[in-house]
């Protein structure tokens, strides 16, 4: 189906009619990371609102309850909702997400994250070709590397592009390439990608073109096949089944009920898609990659909603669904943080004085 687009007033985006209603029906908002901004897609009344937050290069996004964890290439921030349950700010936000805890991962170059059962964060580092977690006193602690990678080096030998968490355990990764540093992965990026099971170390699928965003949903592994523009699922016999093909460099995948929300990047130059199957396809049609979000019904492969963003050169790095109507999100260095202090207002100083443990 083709989706008609309606221009929104508060940002340079167009949305399909009924997008707000779809969000309302599923009681979620969408948060996605873009070149310079984190974008929050929520609702105000019956209307769709897209609130940009200045926060560059957010790639990893994960939600657990009201907690949001996000990463840019050198930091991981854990957000919690500072708003009292059931209340709404004057501006209509029903969640105020504050970055209470920050971890600097530096040159690990984190591109995707997941949350494990114990609440810890698992991170995909393409630069070190590993899965990692945070550790006190260092940038990261490696958890897993492909078995053929001989050494933990910042050399993009087998770049881990995404991590899929299943039942609280890091279960699956996507790789841009499967080497050990003999040949730069970019040279073979049209066919060098793979999906690997981190439990068995087995290659589940290979020959892929820049696979990203592996996600477990409904008992199956889904991922965005960036280089072909396809949303894919791995079947029981390990075959890769495309669900839908879209005119974009796909990256970023979140599930809302039976719907998949995928992100797609455009670029001012052709370098983004050049040499990839999607680049060839678009070139044949003399078309440019489109940017924004697509909502796909995974049962039919039909695109049911679309959020289009004007302008090019702004890549989308990740997307997640958040259980609030219109969360307000602040950058970890925003001036507004000065005025936003969340604390237990019922704290009783007299009782605390009486029981204060002598330090």
């Amino acid at each position, binding site marked *: 189906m083709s989706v008609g687009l309606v221009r929104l007033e508060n940002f340079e985006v167009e949305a399909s009619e009924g997008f707000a209603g779809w969000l309302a029906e599923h009681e979620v908002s969408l948060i996605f990371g873009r070149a310079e901004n984190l974008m929050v897609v929520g609702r105000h009344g019956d209307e769709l609102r897209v609130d940009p937050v200045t926060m560059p290069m957010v790639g990893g996004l994960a939600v657990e309850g009201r907690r949001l964890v996000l990463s840019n290439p*050198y930091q991981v921030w854990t957000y919690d909702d500072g708003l009292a349950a059931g209340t709404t700010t004057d501006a209509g936000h029903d969640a105020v997400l504050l970055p209470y805890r920050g971890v600097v991962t530096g040159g690990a170059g984190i591109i995707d994250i997941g949350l494990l059962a114990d609440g810890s964060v698992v991170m995909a580092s393409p630069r070190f070709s590993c899965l990692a977690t945070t550790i006190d006193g260092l940038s990261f602690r490696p*958890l897993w590397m492909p078995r053929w990678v001989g050494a933990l080096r910042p050399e993009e030998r087998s770049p881990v592009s995404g991590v899929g968490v299943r039942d609280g355990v890091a279960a699956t990764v996507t790789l841009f390439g499967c080497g050990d540093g003999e040949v730069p992965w970019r040279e073979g990026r049209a066919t060098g990608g793979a999906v690997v099971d981190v439990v068995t170390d087995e290659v589940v699928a290979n020959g892929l073109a820049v696979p990203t965003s592996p996600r477990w949903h409904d008992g199956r592994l889904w991922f965005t096949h960036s280089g072909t523009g396809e949303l894919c699922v791995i079947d029981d016999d390990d075959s890769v089944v495309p669900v839908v093909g879209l005119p974009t460099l796909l990256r970023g995948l979140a599930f809302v009920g039976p719907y998949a929300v995928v992100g797609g990047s455009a670029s001012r130059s052709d370098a983004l898609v050049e040499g990839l199957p999607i680049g060839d396809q678009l070139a044949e049609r003399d078309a440019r990659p489109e940017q924004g979000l697509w909502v796909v019904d995974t049962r039919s492969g039909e695109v049911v909603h679309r959020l289009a963003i004007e302008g090019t050169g702004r890549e989308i790095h990740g997307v997640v669904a958040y259980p609030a109507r219109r969360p307000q999100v602040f950058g970890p260095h925003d001036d507004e943080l000065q005025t936003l202090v969340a604390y237990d207002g019922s704290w009783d100083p007299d009782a605390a004085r009486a029981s204060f443990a002598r330090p």
Partner: protein
Amino acid sequence: MADDEAPQSAGLSLTASPGFAAWLDARDASLTFATPPSKVFFVGVRPDGALGVFERTFDKAMGVAVQGSEHVWLGTRTHLWRMDSVPVGDEAAAEGFDRCFVPLRAHTTGYLNTHDVTVDDDGDVVFVATRFGCLARPSDRVSFEPVWQPPWLERFEQGDRCHLNGYARDGSGRAYVSSVSDTGGMESWRDRRNGGGVIAEVPSGEVVARGFSMPHSPRLRDGELWCCNSGSGNLCRVDPATGEVEEIAFAPGFLRGLCFLDGYAVVGSSRPREGDLYSGLPLDDALAKANLKPRLGLFVIELATGKVVEWLFVDGPMRELFDVAAIPGVKRPMALGLVADDIRTAVFYASASISRDDDSAWRPAVEEPTAEASEVDVAAVAP
């Protein structure tokens, strides 16, 4: 080093007394101090015996606390940062750097007007949230966790009523706070800057000494209680049993920030400006009488004599120094900040910590991170 030899940085210059470097060298320690609105300094000694100064930018850095010689905690306008020690590269090591502090962990506190930050050996942090008039701990899921409030404040609420600013503890069970007043009316401390200050015991809140003018930086040293009577330019020793206050030394400045090394106190000094909060206090007269101008920097005071034996002055746009702390066992520290690109590219990891034979290596749930990881087989990758 020569008297006028000064490490240079953009718009900043430092001048030290001729013996400062040798004095610091003999202490087997280095110093870190914070000068709001934007700088944190690390002061050590170079291999040639000259002073080596390193500065980094942090937004309104105030309280500084050192945990062992491995961590530096820093209270900034909206965050509490923990800087962790990482190995220095070969090039830096050749220049005598023996420690690099990198801001790797942050708590977002929002604006609490965080003053003193304290930490014990286990990493338990208690800081003074001056905006709320309370002692607080960092929290993982709200901005801060209040832990103690003086009894003269009626309610727990936002607002700086008494300007609670300092906290002293030494693990012995004794603890004290400094406060510009012991009153609870809205902003009432502002009218009590001259002589209304107190040192009070924690947790009772009982005032053990009073009559100070904007006291700051209470510290416990070998069981003795010290503080800065900032508004008179005095370093003081306080007997909490009798309330007696002994003025040990005078130095030309609004004294605030205090640490001890051997038989010396290192005291921070700020420059009041006519009409600001630090003026109109006994310090004005004391400076006039001594015909001295206030200085921004550090004074080293010999405790046995009360004499200023060394000094380090900062010349730059800033007027305030908030706190100073010693880093024991570290000769010449360096640091990464949040502004330069280093923080995005530098990476520190244990290079051989994946065991293929250990099936659990990829299961974070069953294997706790080892704190020792940083001590073994660590590689530092330059950007």
